[in-house]
């Protein structure tokens, strides 16, 4: 079992790697927040194919946009009725 100091060092190194990757994602204009990026990195480290994951993220974004549009439409209909 690794010593607690070892674990802290490893966690810090992992944290730094995520920070750098987040900066790269910002420079590439990926529209990813830190939390989403961390989840995606965990998934890739669990063997998920990166291209398949990117396709899933794009699909989920589309779903999210449809939902947001539907919510906005419902809100404007309610406002008009009043």
């Amino acid at each position, binding site marked *: 079992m690794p010593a607690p100091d070892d674990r802290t060092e490893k966690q810090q190194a992992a944290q730094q790697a995520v920070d750098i990757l987040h900066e790269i994602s910002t420079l590439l204009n990926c529209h990813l927040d830190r939390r*989403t990026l961390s989840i*995606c990195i965990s998934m890739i480290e669990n063997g998920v194919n990166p291209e398949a994951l990117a396709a899933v993220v794009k699909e989920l974004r589309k779903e999210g946009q449809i939902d947001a549009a539907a919510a906005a439409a419902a809100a404007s209909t309610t406002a008009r009725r009043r």
Partner: protein
Amino acid sequence: MAYLAQLVGLVEELVEAVTVIPPTDRKKTLACRESALRGIRHHSYLRTNQFEVDDQLKGLEERFRVIGRDPLADAFSQRLDALEGHRNKYTPDVLRFLLELSDQPAQNTKLGD
């Protein structure tokens, strides 16, 4: 089985982070989760070629310079150099993922962000 349970947990987190579905809409959340799991488990993509990823990254940096966005190219190159110290066997995969999601960085990236 443990792997699948872990993957399902991560997919649920991803759905929550990416979509704006209200937590009360359980049906929609489940549909998104199932569709995401399907997309992740059944696909026809090849394994990542790290040399191809490196070439793409170099090409992108060159493109930034060609269109006169030297500060962006410098920032990009600096981050890639910094990442070298933290490289592991998943780094090419993560970079491949970021390249897939990149959205016209040469035109749209604002360095102030």
